[in-house]
């Protein structure tokens, strides 16, 4: 069997159910692949891992991938699994945030690590300054959890539809007490989980073949996971080496993830969404993520070969 290593962007959770399902159900084996899945974490940058030769394929968000590409590590998107963005800003009504205009003068929690670009771009369009001596908005680099909003240290925090949002609810706040702003709805969404490889691997026919088999098997895993969310969540739980995840949370997450994966042409990069992502990344007033329009940052060829 051909060996292949996949680096995840985050810890083992239902966000990556498709791959675990593919592995558990033997889809990879059927495609004559032996896949190693490496979980990530808060300070694992998948692009760095692949640049250092630590993985063959990585899951990353497009802003980070494009930035890396401009820094001379030629990453190429071979399949875009999540069609929609799951990022949003969750705010407390009792701290005075009901519409986007209420942000002024508030403290907002934001994820950095390359995930802040959509937020900054959004604030630009709203006309709020986030830096300088007297900013309209106090930005907080939030940690890994949603404590700031629970403790009223921030009026809003970043959440994923499939994860942190539910932690806010678990902590006792009700949906009625919250205002949520989905990036997808604000028109500032960038593409999230996609599969990336080094450009070099696309020059080698054997590798291309291997990657197509991998993408095909992974997408099959995703389809299965979307169809059987509870079973998929259980498979994820079995693969969680920390033993820290709970069934309730993972099943819930799986249902939300299913909404992001999309329905037709699963895994095919939508060029319009790509274009929108690039525009957002190049539009930044304060500091641009990428300066030049990327060339050859994605290929549909692998996805197409995976279809038969």
């Amino acid at each position, binding site marked *: 069997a051909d060996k292949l290593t996949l680096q995840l962007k985050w810890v083992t959770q239902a966000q990556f159910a498709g791959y675990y399902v593919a592995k558990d159900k033997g889809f990879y084996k059927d495609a004559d692949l032996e896949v190693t899945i490496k979980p990530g974490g808060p300070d694992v940058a998948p692009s760095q891992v692949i640049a250092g030769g630590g993985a063959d394929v990585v899951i990353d968000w497009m802003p980070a991938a494009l930035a890396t590409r401009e820094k001379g590590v030629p990453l190429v998107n071979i399949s875009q699994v999540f069609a929609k963005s799951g990022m949003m800003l969750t705010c407390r009504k009792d701290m005075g945030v009901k519409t986007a205009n209420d942000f002024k003068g508030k403290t907002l929690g934001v994820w*950095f690590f*390359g995930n802040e670009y959509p937020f900054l771009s959004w604030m630009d369009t709203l006309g709020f300054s986030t830096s300088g001596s007297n900013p309209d908005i106090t930005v907080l680099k939030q940690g890994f959890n949603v404590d700031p909003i629970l403790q009223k240290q921030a009026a809003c925090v970043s959440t994923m539809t499939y994860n942190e949002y539910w932690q806010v609810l678990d902590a006792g706040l009700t949906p009625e007490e919250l205002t949520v702003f989905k990036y997808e709805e604000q028109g500032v969404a960038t593409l999230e989980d996609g599969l990336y490889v080094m450009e070099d691997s696309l020059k080698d026919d054997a590798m291309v073949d291997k990657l197509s088999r991998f993408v095909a098997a992974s997408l099959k895993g995703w389809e299965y996971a979307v169809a059987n969310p509870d079973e998929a969540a259980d498979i994820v739980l079995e693969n969680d080496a920390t033993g820290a995840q709970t069934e309730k949370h993972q099943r819930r997450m799986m249902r939300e993830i299913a909404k992001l994966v999309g329905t037709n042409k699963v895994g095919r990069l939508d060029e319009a969404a790509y274009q929108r992502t690039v525009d957002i990344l190049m539009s930044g007033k304060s500091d641009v993520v990428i300066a030049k329009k990327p060339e050859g940052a994605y290929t549909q060829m692998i996805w197409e070969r995976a279809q038969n």
Partner: protein
Amino acid sequence: MAGRYDPVLIIFMGFSLVSFWFPVGHDGNDSVTWWFDIRAGALVAASVLIAGIQLYFRVTNLTFALFVTLALILGVMAPLLAIDTLRTDGYEAIGLWIYVAGLGFLAWRAMAMLSKAAEFNRLISFAVPALFGLWLLYLWQVVTTGFGVPSVLLPSPGQIGDAIAANGETLYADFYQTVIKSVLSGFVFGCGSGFLVAILVDRIPFMQRGLLPLGSLVSAVPIVGIAPIMVMWFGFDWESKAAVIVVMTFFPMLINTLAGLQATGKIEKDLMRSYAAGYWQTLFFVRLPNALPFIFNALKINSTLAMIGAIVAEFFGTPIVGMGFRISTEVGRMNVDIVWATIAVAAVVGSVFYGLLALFEKRLTFWHASYRRAR
């Protein structure tokens, strides 16, 4: 070095001469030797020549130390020339890397000669660590550029230097937030409380048996665990970072102070006893002076721990300024050069901090055997 021929220089000359027989790079069509550029060849030859002269005279005074340093300076330029114009990764440039390895021996010899000369010259005594540092930076530069290491993995010192120059203001703001606000206050509180608890524990033996085992409990609490909790308790700003530093620095100070307080000899204590000196008098007049070498150990260890603690704590939620914030975000943005620029600032700050402590130590413990060296 007296007597025999210096083996270190012989190795350098050997490596250098051998390197002439091997390719030092690829100019697009062919493998070439040092003579791809007459200047490179001449530089290598010059360094070998000087080493030969030194080998012959075997004099170790300052003049010759500087002479060998000159050989090193000439020598290091040749690889830079090669890397600039040739493709140098892998076996195609084996000669180049043999020569660089040889230069390591030359650098060692230069430093050894300088540190001998440094005994009589303060200026030179600063030159030795500087030379060592420059040599490390040089190796780093040659290897990263020579092997084409991607900058997202490890930028070269040149790129880091550019990043420092381009981001001065940001780096200063980060420095102010992290060092001035978090580190200093955390360090003072942490070391202070460790010291005071040590005194308390020493004063009340009941406490010693009760608190000491629990002191190590505190020390073993990993930063990654307490940082989020401190953020929860003390908010996002520097206070929570200072709290993390307090927890981290507490234990080394406690343990070292206690060990130091035990270091007073029997007869020294008996003398105080014969004066019917009280606990505090004995403490101030004898036990603390004797404990000073240990206390300074703790201060030194803590000075670096405090930097690490502040930076790591900032990974867990901060306002958008600070060295830890910078490092954790710029890694995600693939601006690894800025990351290393920040690390460089941290290293300089930490070293200066440490140096000041060492200076103080020398002032206060001049009488300790470790400073009263026999020749």
